């Protein structure tokens, strides 16, 4: 026999659940969800606050802003030594390029920026002409302007180039040389001809297997041995050749990834339309593959830009190299000089690389959208 149980009173009311809307709700969900989480937030917040305060304190509050030598910065408990940066900055950009001729590197940088900007904006007109200009005419113009010796321009030895100028020259020349080479290698690696394929694979894996420092050493000490007698290449040129060969192997792998992503049906459709194999590659496969590999190529370019710092092991003074060399200057021998120099270097490299990586993300997102249509 069962007893029916009918509840005749309401259960006690529970408090309403914590709000999930509004600022408080957001804080509760994302920062203070449970005691462990709150503790983590507090600890990380303290660490972050301490870090931000020390940087602010060092770079602004305790920093020395004016002065003309080590006396200004060598005071006890001083922060960043900014007058060092003011004085050295032109040298960090141009190296030992003659003062009166510095409009030339500036012009090269300005032309490059002006030609590159429309390339990066999707939908801007004249992409093809612009690309041709950048890849063919621009290097020639830049070379004549920088090296001089023609059109009444004073010749300037590459040994007096330096700073950000060298960084940009090495990185941009590196990518201009390695891009076509890398595309050829990627095509070679996918070739059906065993000799071509093997040669490409050996080339690619050889460069990818060794560190860049050894490649630069090789370019600086071994390359002169390979050249026929009487032919000499200057130091900068040798480093650029080493870096370009090195980068071309990585570009080849990025392009190969793109080539593999193009559906086989594209090739077959092209052949069915009566195009030759060369035409199919040139007009159908490669354009699609390159578009797909743009984010990776930009990634390699960022790597190349960062790797140009290594040229200092073969005593070429790029942006980091010249900052590092300037630290030996007895005029500025103060405890915080080096920290200030490295701080500025880090900011500049970060600004360049971060901007490029954002651009890579942007193209990637655009490609994804195009793929969805």
């Amino acid at each position: 026999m069962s007893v029916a149980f009918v509840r005749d009173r309401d259960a006690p009311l529970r408090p309403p659940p914590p709000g999930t809307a509004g600022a408080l709700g957001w804080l509760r969900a994302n920062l203070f969800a449970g005691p462990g989480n709150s503790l983590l937030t507090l600890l990380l917040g303290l660490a972050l606050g301490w870090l931000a305060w020390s940087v602010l304190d060092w770079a602004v509050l305790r920093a020395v802003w004016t002065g003309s030598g080590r006396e200004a910065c060598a005071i006890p408990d001083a922060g960043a030594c900014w007058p060092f940066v003011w004085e050295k900055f032109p040298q960090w950009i141009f190296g030992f390029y003659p003062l009166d001729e510095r409009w030339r590197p500036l012009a090269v940088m300005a032309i490059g920026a002006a030609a590159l900007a429309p390339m990066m904006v999707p939908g801007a007109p004249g992409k093809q002409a612009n690309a041709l200009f950048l890849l063919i005419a621009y290097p020639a113009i830049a070379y004549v302007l920088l090296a001089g010796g023609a059109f009444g321009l004073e010749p300037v030895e590459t040994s007096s180039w330096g700073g950000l100028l060298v960084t940009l020259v090495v990185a941009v020349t590196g990518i201009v040389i390695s891009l076509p080479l890398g595309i050829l290698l990627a095509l070679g690696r996918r070739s059906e001809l065993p000799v071509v394929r093997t040669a490409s694979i050996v080339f690619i894996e050889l460069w990818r297997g060794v560190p860049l420092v050894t490649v630069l050493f090789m370019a600086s000490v071994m390359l002169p041995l390979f050249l026929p007698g009487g032919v000499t290449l200057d130091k900068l040129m040798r480093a650029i050749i080493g870096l370009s060969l090195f980068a071309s192997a990585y570009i080849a792998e990025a392009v190969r990834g793109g080539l593999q992503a193009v559906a086989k049906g594209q090739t077959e459709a092209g052949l069915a339309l009566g195009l030759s194999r060369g035409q199919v590659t040139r007009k159908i496969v490669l354009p699609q593959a390159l578009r797909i590999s743009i984010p990776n190529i930009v990634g390699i370019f960022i790597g190349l830009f960062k790797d140009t710092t290594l040229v200092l092991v073969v005593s070429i003074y790029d942006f980091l190299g010249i900052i590092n060399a300037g630290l030996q200057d007895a005029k500025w021998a103060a405890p915080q000089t080096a920290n200030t120099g490295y701080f500025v270097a880090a900011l500049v490299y970060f600004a360049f690389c971060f901007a490029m990586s954002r651009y890579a993300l942007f193209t990637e997102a655009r490609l994804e959208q195009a793929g969805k249509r």
Partner: protein
Amino acid sequence: MSLEATARPRRRPVWSSARWRGLALQALVLIALAAFFYDLALNTAANMATRHIVSGFDFLWRKAGFEVSFSLIPYSGEDSYARALMVGFFNTLLVSACGIVLATMLGLVIGLMRLSRNWLAARIATAYIEVMRNVPLLLQLFIWYRLVLTPLPQARDAITLGSASLSNKGLTLPAPVFGDGAWWSWVGFGVAAVAFWLLSGWNRRQREATGKSMPVWWLGALLLVALPVLFLFAAGWPLSFEHPVRSNFGFRGGMTLVPEFMALLLALSIYTAAFIAEAVRAGVMAVSRGQGEAAAALGLKPRLAMRLVVLPQALRVIIPPLTSQYLNLTKNSSLAVAIGYPDLVSTGGTILGQTGQAIEVVTIWMVVYLSLSLLTSAFMNWFNARHRLVGR
């Protein structure tokens, strides 16, 4: 009529066949390559003759005559170039191995932090990754070198604690000297390793059968430390310490961990950790959400769900990029040359400067790094294959 037509098809010129063209192209490539290398060899021979460089690896047995600041094997300037290169090789291995371990741990933490539900933790991890990836490694190395070196006192004002001392020459510790019978500790280590392996296998079967599990990793670590010590003790403790002696310019004897090593290790692991963190994040995100939700539905706490359900599956996606990051770390350890840590490239560079044997030294570098690359990828492929088998 029609029979005749099929019997004698219209002859096509031989060069229009794809096969023939392929062969011709390959022959051309071969000839071009051969000519290129022949020319290279001729030029090199002529150049070396004018510079009076004798090619060959005989120079390796000549006296090196330079000292190195840090060595795992006994070495002095009286030893040969070959031994100097060995010193560099072991130093490269040491910094790469330590760097790989540190970078993996840090990268795992940062990668999981980036996926954390805690907003601040995720943001800090993102900022870490962005900053580390976008600042050149060489610059980071310089910065770490300064940070490591600046607070350290001169050797004569070294901070000492017992017979350990810390100065700008590095951290000097008493060096263990192993006498006869010290190999017993290796035996102990081997026994411990086998025991650990058996134990973890037994534990896995036990867990699969009953759901109960033991803290195998702690037990294993205990075994790996305790057994060698125990064996050494049983062999009559054939172990003594050589204490460092203060000399004019630093310390003699003992073993020294140079600041260059610390700086290089920090820079390499902190830089590579950012890339590993991205690989970890990608791997975890590749595991379908349902897996985590199913684990939660079974009552696993988030931490356990991550460790037992999500991470093992993510590992399959993580391992290939992880391999290439390990290789990058090993190759990047060659930046040692910039701060003077005597790795393979640094010692090789000194030898190159002294002897002018550019081709030989560069060949040695290439062979060593290529074999390291091949070995690492072979090991990681094996690990990957093994993991895949277990997972299914």
